[in-house]
């Protein structure tokens, strides 16, 4: 492979990684900070894509971004309300919302499974025109995504240090302590999920516009892909680092995941393996430390089994 091809591969991984990074940052907030595994992520990603595509097709490319984020917020609000105020278990609340969102997405797009945007003016085509004639003209996708991801990282690193951000982090760490600080964990969870789902939806919105196509299943498996990226990022900047570094780690994880995936595709791995790979990464990252702790015990059990009865008591004599 020539250097050019390597560079192209790296660039694609970077672009796609940055699109995914927004969802990874959303999970960084909900999963790492709030300790909620938000299974509505897939549906919310698609919801953002649908709302964004509709707005762009209607001729409002810039408006598509806040519109998608608002839709995501509403979805996060429903998920949070279900689990914090209506007694639905956390995981189930996400699944239920996720399922419901499929119908909502189909209804929004007028029962169409895809919305092609080949001729649509999007934030990407606008940026492309803006950059025409400058040396950066070819890099419009990268530039849009870099700006979006940088803004979200800056926002998170500020937000997570405010009193509200601290309360959200404490909710994931010790909800009783939040209550004794006179703060309602139901409130912090709701705010946290609203913000995180806004980013998920933004991610979907940009993904659809970048690919010039909306597809009703484009979010499927997103939660696992994002979780895998997040866990990879955690290898670089773990729990005891500051929130800014950890957020940067999440972005790095998204890029690396895409890079490894792109390399695997190069080596003739079929594209449909993406989700299996992300599942395996999540399993290894979560189960690995657990199994490592169990390992000495397993060895001990094996050693005891090997011992013949009587030998232990009898000894050499």
């Amino acid at each position, binding site marked *: 492979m020539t250097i050019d091809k390597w560079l192209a591969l790296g660039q694609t991984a970077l672009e796609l990684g940055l699109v995914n990074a927004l969802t990874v940052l959303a999970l960084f907030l909900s999963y790492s900070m709030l300790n909620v595994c938000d299974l509505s992520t897939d549906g919310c990603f698609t919801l953002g894509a649908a709302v964004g595509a509709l707005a762009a097709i209607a001729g409002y490319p810039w408006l598509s971004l806040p519109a998608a984020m608002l839709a995501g917020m509403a979805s996060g609000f429903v998920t949070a309300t279900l689990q914090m105020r209506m007694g639905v278990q956390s995981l189930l609340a996400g699944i239920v919302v996720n399922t419901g969102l499929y119908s909502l997405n189909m209804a929004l797009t007028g029962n169409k499974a895809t919305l092609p945007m080949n001729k649509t003016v999007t934030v990407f085509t606008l940026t492309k025109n803006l950059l025409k004639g400058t040396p950066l003209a070819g890099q419009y996708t990268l530039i849009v995504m870099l700006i979006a991801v940088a803004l979200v990282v800056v926002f998170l690193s500020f937000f997570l240090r405010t009193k509200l951000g601290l309360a959200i982090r404490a909710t994931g760490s010790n909800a009783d302590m939040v209550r004794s600080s*006179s*703060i309602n*964990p139901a409130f912090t969870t709701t705010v946290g999920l609203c913000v995180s789902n806004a980013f998920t939806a933004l991610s979907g919105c940009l993904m659809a516009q970048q690919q010039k196509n909306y597809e009703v299943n484009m979010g499927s498996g997103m939660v696992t892909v994002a979780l895998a990226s997040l866990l990879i990022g955690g290898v670089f900047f773990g729990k005891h680092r500051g929130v800014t570094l950890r957020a940067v780690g999440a972005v790095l994880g998204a890029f690396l995941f895409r890079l490894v995936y792109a390399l695997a595709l190069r080596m003739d791995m079929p594209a449909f393996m993406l989700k299996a790979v992300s599942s395996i990464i999540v399993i290894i990252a979560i189960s690995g430390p657990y199994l490592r702790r169990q390992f000495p015990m397993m060895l001990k059990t094996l050693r005891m089994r090997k011992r013949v009865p009587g030998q232990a008591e009898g000894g050499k004599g």
Partner: protein
Amino acid sequence: MLRLNRISKTFNPGTVNEKRALKDLTLHIRQGDFVSIIGANGAGKSTLFNLICGTFYPDAGEVYLDGRNVTMEADHVRARQIGRLFQDPKLGTAPDMSIEENLALAAGNGGWLSRVSAADKRAFRERLSLLGMGLEDRMKQPVGLLSGGQRQALTLLMATYHIPKLLLLDEHTAALDPGTAEKVLNLTRSIVEDNHITCLMITHNMQSALDLGNRTLMMDQGRVIYDVTGEERASLTIQDLTEKFRTLSGRALDNDRMLLGIEK
């Protein structure tokens, strides 16, 4: 200050596990009282605290705090006026956050979007130095790295950062080694006395039940069976207390931890 009016609480009513944790309990705690509470396991001590804090609500009766009926008020709303420490030092702090961030939540200064200011940091340093544990030089470290005693001392500091109307201590030194326990107990004593905090303390250590505070309650099977203050309390010994328990409850005190407390 704190008035409990005919409080009853039954767990798992109508099942084989039915447990009448509190039976028609009436109690009045005066402003500035430091009350130690003793009693065997299952006497209803922690249930009493949970009802005062709003962890759950009583089946009957009312809780008045400073003249206001708070019986049905949510726990986090009540927490503005009530500080609480548990036996498990892990319960009072968020392990993944730094000492500074934990204190910032306890201080709760400013609006939702405000950040920890330099003045806050100075105040935290000053308060932490009062603990005499060197925590003021470790403010950026996650609380999860602290020892049990350090965490409990930090929790005590957080619970009393804004002087609460009522401080509830639920065997808060029982999980610490004896040396640390004594240190935390001395800290408790000085913070409570310096700030004239009304305080209830559950303990299994009969000696500290008599040493600390100005009033002692003995609970058994959901009732207060002995309530002593003043001169009578001053002359009490641990032997007197066990004898009291025997005569008032009709049973011998068979709690290991309390007996260990006697030997100490």
